[in-house]
């Protein structure tokens, strides 16, 4: 156990690990995304109520799921960096923030596109959409705070504290937005998802969620490798690894 933790704290080891995993993960993720999209777009049955516009679900929901998980991953990396002062945890946290923000943006954009044919408006103050928007601002806050500090070690500590405070608050925010929405729900747009989704629609969705998690992992590794390269450009181990 301690050996594993020790290895994840060692930049050369993580760099090698990324180097070894990326060539496998990249094609795997690409295939999973393409197969999943094709399945959802062309083979899953048409929804009897919404028609074909529901097919956006196969990117909207996975993006939303992963963006929420991404915040927790970022906060966990922040906790590790606060407690053990591991440089790699800083880098992981720094990598997770923009990826998570991008996934949140994808969820919001696809949600808006989905909303137009479903609700007749690009933007509806639905509970889940609103929560997503708040999550987006939580991510933007972490990124902005990081950029505000010149000293990046201190910036990482500040961001770690902020993301931990956010972690405590996210469940409260989500619950309160649900509460707010249930009280103000306009009768005209009562749309409560598909309560019993058929297996033929569910399997491609689950597949896409797995593919998006793989994509998140891949993006994390690509970004980690990038920040390791810039952080340790003067280190012997990196020069040796690149030049041989």
């Amino acid at each position, binding site marked *: 156990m301690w050996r594993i933790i020790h290895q994840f704290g060692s930049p050369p080891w993580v760099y090698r690990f990324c180097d070894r995993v990326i060539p496998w993960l990249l094609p795997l993720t690409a295939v999973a995304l393409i197969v999943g999209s094709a399945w959802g777009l062309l083979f899953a049955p048409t929804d009897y109520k919404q028609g074909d516009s529901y*097919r956006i679900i196969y990117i909207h929901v996975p993006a939303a799921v992963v963006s929420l998980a991404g915040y927790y991953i970022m906060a966990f990396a922040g906790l590790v960096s606060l407690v053990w002062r591991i440089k790699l945890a800083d880098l992981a946290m720094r990598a997770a923030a923009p990826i998570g923000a991008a996934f949140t943006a994808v969820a919001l954009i696809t949600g808006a596109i989905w909303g137009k044919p479903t609700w007749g408006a690009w933007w509806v103050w639905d509970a889940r959409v609103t929560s997503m928007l708040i999550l987006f601002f939580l991510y933007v806050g972490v990124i902005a705070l990081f950029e505000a500090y010149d000293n990046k070690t201190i910036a990482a500590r500040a961001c770690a504290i902020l993301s931990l405070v956010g972690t405590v608050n996210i469940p409260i925010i989500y619950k309160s937005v649900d509460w707010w929405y249930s009280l103000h729900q306009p009768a005209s747009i009562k749309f409560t998802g598909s309560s019993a989704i058929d297996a033929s629609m569910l399997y491609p969705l689950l597949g896409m969620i797995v593919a998006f998690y793989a994509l998140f992992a891949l993006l994390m590794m690509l970004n980690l490798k990038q920040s390791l390269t810039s952080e340790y450009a003067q280190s012997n181990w990196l020069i040796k690894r690149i030049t041989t």
Partner: protein
Amino acid sequence: MQFDSFAAAVTMGGHGGFVWAAYAITSVVILVMIVRPVLSTRSMQDTIQREFERKQAHEKDAS
């Protein structure tokens, strides 16, 4: 296959524009997120490589 023809898959009963636009935007975002760190890492690695070769040549000249 849910659709009888290519045209049916494109239009999706009038919702095609929305569905394909959502997938297109997502693909672009994903591609950018993958390509950006790859390119930046590669250019940094090239710099390190060149620096290393320059130093080696320099050492050879000195000896």
